[in-house]
């Protein structure tokens, strides 16, 4: 994430806080952003406005994991590293064999992703709990 982009994001974050002050502000970055970059940008602005950070959630596309793991491993590891929650998304569309492969691949990184599906509701309680567990500000 470039400096100007990070500055724009911080500026937008401040404007939303001051003009709307929502309970939650979601950031949905482009696919090339890694978690540490997000964490750094997320922290910028805390001297100026009051807000809480997290959780930082990383979604793994179970259907495309094999391809991404082979071709874009550094990107996946960058998104997994430092994330508060790592989920296998669209889990209702992912077979047992693919899930086993993901667990095996991530074994070395000591990451155990959970299954998440909007369609069947898997994992949503876990995410909602993570959102509500942090103290309100």
């Amino acid at each position, binding site marked *: 994430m470039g400096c100007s982009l990070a500055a724009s994001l911080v500026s937008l974050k401040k404007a939303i806080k001051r003009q709307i002050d929502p309970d*939650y502000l979601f950031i*949905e970055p482009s696919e090339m*952003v890694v978690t540490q970059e997000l964490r750094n940008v997320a922290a910028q602005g805390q001297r100026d406005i009051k807000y809480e950070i997290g959780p930082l*959630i990383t979604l793994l596309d179970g259907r495309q994991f094999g391809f991404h793991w082979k071709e874009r491993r550094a990107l996946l590891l960058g998104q997994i590293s430092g994330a508060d929650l790592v989920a296998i*998304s669209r889990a209702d569309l992912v077979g047992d064999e693919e899930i086993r492969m993901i667990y095996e691949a991530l074994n070395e990184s000591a990451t155990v992703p959970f299954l998440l599906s909007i369609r069947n509701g898997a994992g949503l309680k876990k995410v909602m709990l993570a959102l509500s567990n942090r103290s309100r500000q």
Partner: protein
Amino acid sequence: MKLICVSGTRGSGKTSVVRELVARLGSEGLRSAVIVNEEGRVSYDNGFVKEHGVTVKSIRGG
């Protein structure tokens, strides 16, 4: 305000997850806003924005 980041490769379901969370939080009376990369902006249609009273801003290249 709590800042929540949802990362993932294209097609990983970021928007679907954020939309679901916004809807669930809204049903609890909690207001949300979203900053999305420009490419994902189209997934937040006017109907969704109005129904959930969510503010959506896009950022180029973000």
